[in-house]
Every structure is written in C-alpha cells, then in structure tokens.
C-alpha cells in the first residue's frame, strides 16, 4: 500500500474523514488524503430492512482503486447490512484494495446514551484501521486488544486498541506501535 484515499459517502455528522486523514498515516505509515465523490446511496437501500447493502456499495468503490497503488476507504454514517447478517460495522476485500465503514452504530446515541464525540471518533478510527487491515491481508487476530480482533458488538470495539499487535505489525512489515 502506497497511500490511502478516504471517500466520504452521504452526509456525516462529524468530520470523521478529516480526523482519519491525520491519524491513519501514523498507524499505517502511508500518506492519506480525502477526495469528494458523488456516490448516490438510493440504489443500495433496502426498504424491508431499512438498511444499506454494504457489499453493493463496496462494489461501487472498486473503480477508484484501479491502476494505482492506493487503498480506498469509504466512510458513511448509515446502517449497513449484508444479506445473511443483521448488520455490519464495515466490510473489506480481504487482500484487496477497497473497504467500507459506517459510524452509524458507533454513536453512543444509537444505544440510547448521551452522544460522546471523542468516543465516536476513536471508534471510527479503530473500525477504519480494522477494515484497511483486511485489505492488507490480515484476518481476525486472537489478541483481544489488537485492532484486528473481531468486533461484532460495540463492546468488542471499545475493548480493543487502535493499533496492530506486534504479531500483526510483523506480518504487515511495519514498526509496531504497541
């Protein structure tokens, strides 16, 4: 990976992309920039489930990765699903170039709690690093503090750290921040 391109999709309450453009280079050791693209979400909406089809949106991102050594991360604030699961926090191509994440279920408000902007951005950062880790070929890690630990609930996300464990860092060939 030579650089990361962040594409905000739809409306976002917070400047997640701005925050990630500063934090991701420190963790992944590559430059990161934000680009504006007009990607309509309407075709991917399921009125039955009142959610957006994650895999189909991910497919929309593929052309942006073409030909260049860059990894694409789409950032959204809507609820995502894949047909077999009730929801996903994000989705990525394993050893591919594109990933997608949503902050929808990362808000404290989603769980009926007062909003916490700082906690929200920290969760978004973990989810972004996690999905980009998949694009770099990493599977889920057994270390419960590693950012590559599976996260099927918000508690899983809060337990883990925002960086790769030494073992995952070694696989990626980057200096560990553990």
């Amino acid at each position: 990976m030579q650089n990361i391109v962040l594409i905000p999709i739809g409306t976002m309450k917070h400047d997640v992309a701005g925050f990630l453009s500063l934090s991701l280079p420190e963790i992944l050791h590559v430059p990161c920039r934000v680009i504006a693209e007009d990607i309509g979400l309407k075709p991917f909406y399921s009125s039955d489930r009142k959610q957006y089809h994650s895999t189909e949106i991910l497919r929309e991102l593929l052309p942006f990765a073409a030909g260049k050594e860059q990894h694409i991360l789409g950032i959204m604030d809507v609820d995502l699903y894949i047909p077999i699961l009730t929801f996903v926090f994000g989705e990525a191509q394993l050893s591919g170039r594109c990933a997608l994440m949503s902050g929808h279920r990362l808000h404290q408000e989603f769980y009926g709690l007062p909003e916490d902007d700082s906690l929200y951005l920290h969760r978004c950062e973990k989810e972004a690093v996690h999905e980009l880790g998949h694009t770099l070929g990493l599977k889920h890690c057994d270390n419960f503090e590693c950012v590559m630990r599976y996260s099927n609930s918000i508690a899983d996300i809060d337990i883990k750290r925002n960086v790769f464990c030494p073992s995952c860092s070694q696989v990626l060939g980057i200096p560990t921040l553990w």
Partner: protein
Amino acid sequence: MTKGSSNENVRILIVDDEFSVRHSLTAWFEDEGYTVDVASSGKEALAKLAENRWDIFFLDLKMPGMTGLELQKKIKEIQPDGTIIIITAFASVESAVEAMQSGAYDYLSKPFDPDYLALMVRNIIERKKLKEETASLKKTIDGVYTSKEIIGESKGTQKMMEDIRAVADTGSTVLIRGESGTGKELVARAIHANSKRRYAPIVTINCGALPESILESELFGHEKGAFTGAQYARKGKFEMADGGTIFLDEIGNISPKIQMELLRVLEDKKFFRLGGSKELKADFRTIAATNKDLEAAMEKGEFRNDLFYRLNVFVIEIPPLRERRSDIELLAQHFLNVFTSQMNKPIAKISPAAMKLLAGYDWPGNVRELENAIERAVVVCKAKEIKPSDFPFFNARPEEEASPDDSLESLQRKHIRKVLKQTGWNISKAAAVLQIDRVTLYNKISKYNLKKP
C-alpha cells in the same frame, strides 16, 4: 499476506441455493480465519462431503431438489460427529422442532446477529475440543491400571489379579483384606479402573483416621448450620461418589453408631445430610478394606454381623509380602526405577548382596515399607548400585529385636523407633507406615523419649 491461525483447522461447509448468502457467509468466516467451502445444492454438498470431512455445516432449509432437513439426515449417516446448523428465511416452529429432533445443533433465521453467530461457532469448536479431550482421557484411563501398577509374579499376586479381573465388571461389593502396607487402595483403584464405572470418580475415605463426628459429616455431608462451624452446606463422600465407587478404608475401625448408619446407606443407597431434611440418593459401588480380623471383632461384639455380611460379598485377600518373597526383587527394581527417575540419580541396580538382604527380611510394613526402604536407599546411595550399607535398618542392634519377654509398651517403643529410623525421622511417612495420626506419633515419641539421632 495472511497470518496463520488455529481456526484454519476448522472446516465449514455452507449449503445454500442463494449466491449472496454463500458469498457473504464465506467472506465473514474467512475473516475469522476458518477454512470455508460452499455448495449450492444438497447433491453438490454430498459430493464435497465425499471428498473431505467438515466440522460445521450450515444448511439452508428450503432448497430445490433436496431440502436442508433431508440433507441433514444424509450427513448424519455419513459423518455423525458433524455439527449441523439449519438456516432459513422462513422460520416455522414445525421445521425448527424437526431439525432439532434430527440432531441439528441450532436453527437460525436469516439474517443472523453477527455476535450470536460468532459465539455459536466458538462454542461449537470448544465443545468439539472437549469431546476430543474426553475421548483421549478415556483412552488413557482404559490403559492405566490393567496390570501396570500391581507388580508381582508370585502365585499370591497372580491369584489376586485374577480376582480383580473377575469382580471388576460385576458391580459387586468387595472386601479387601490384607495387612497394613500391602496396597489395599491400589487394589480398590484397579477394581474401579476396570469396571463400567471407571469414567466416574472413585472416592476414598480412611474411616480409621477420623473421629466419629467428623467421619459422619465426611460421609454424609452437612447442611449449613448443622453444627458449630458448618458455615456452608457440603456434599458428603457418598454424594461425590454418585455414578462411581466409594472406597471405605479401615472399615474395621468405625464406631457402632457409624456402623449402623453405614449399614442403612449401603442397603438402600439413601441418606440424609447432617442437619438435612431431604432424603438423598446416590448410585455407587462399595469397596471396603481392613487389616483387622473382623470375625474376631464380631465375636467380641465390636463389629456388627449384618454390616459384615453386607460387605463380605466378594473377598480379595492380599498376601503379606513375606508370603510372596518372589515378588520382592521385582518390586524393589520397580521402586528403584521410580525413585531414580524422580530424583534424577544414575543408580542402575541393587547389588546381589543387598537384594539377598531384602529378600530375606520379613517386611512387617509390607510393600509400603519396601517402598520407603528403597526411597531412603536411593537418597543416601552415592554409588552406581545400592549396597547393603544403604539399608541401615538391617544393621539394627540386637536390642531392637523383639523378645518374648517384651511388654507391649516396650515392643511399641522399639517398633516406632525402627520405623522412624527407616523413614529418616520423617514424621508423615512414619505415621503412614504405622497407620496412626502424626500427632499421635509425636505424642508417642515424647512418651517413649525417643530422640532424633
């Protein structure tokens, strides 16, 4: 580049006619590091099953051709230990019941909660591991006691082995008789280990070592507040032995009150905890042991006749070591191997002169005394073989020998001094050989004014 994971050994087969389901489940499980393959129909799934074995199957309920439930039955025939999860978009109580009755692990309606799915798969893997561990432990148990632990080629030992084999599987009550130190507990364990109850525990209690009130609470358990200090309810040995065997050692030393209570519980396997009002039941086999002459105790009225006949169903007599001298050499060599390996000492053998001494000695403390003697010799031996000088008790002064004129006290004093010498003044070991409590031993040491050299 991917990182290796133990999950790779877990093989999952997803069978669904819908592409999006196969695709998204595969991607999700691959992220977790599992080995995944897919089939779009029952026929294709059976072909994959013929090529490979799979640990977990996700089967769609409604598929053209063969339904998930039909496929489940076929999989169970081919690979009975496979874990099957039925998935469906059209959940109904009837199909769920049918799936579970046919042996499905779970029944999920689409879409799944990812947290539940992850937890379920982890539980399945954990369960599989435990099953494998249990199977391996059962194999270990099966091989433990058949003949390895009981050593000897003498007629007496061979007869005892035959008795053990004959009675082990019958479930009968066994009374083991033999002098102190002959290995009665070992025989009890061998009977248990060769019986149908071997995967359940054998619970041992030394009836002679405990005062009446404690023995009662140990055997039957007690409820909270049953007596001063009973802060918690506690299970008794009979409850703990449920499904297995209870080994009542030194049965000849129990009080008349406990004898009566034991008789009742041995007859109908029902009892009450101390302070309890609920009658409890336990399924256990009884093995009892004694070094006492129970017939003489009955004549004196010290042991109940009815309890004796309840216990005296199948008797195994363990001959004292002096009556099976041909076993001494084998046993000595066995203990030498055990202790040299434990203490990491390069002692290869026992010298012929030392072995002659061992074979000629009477061993009043039986196998336990021989074991202690070899252990002590291994500790003090500095050469490559054990010599007579490594057994200092053979050089005992003549005054140590019992004479017909000795009083009982004098004999006791001599015997205690001898055992203390043999065990290197190790109070616990000496008390075990003498089969008395450590405090009792200490009191006797004071009484007889015995001094550690």
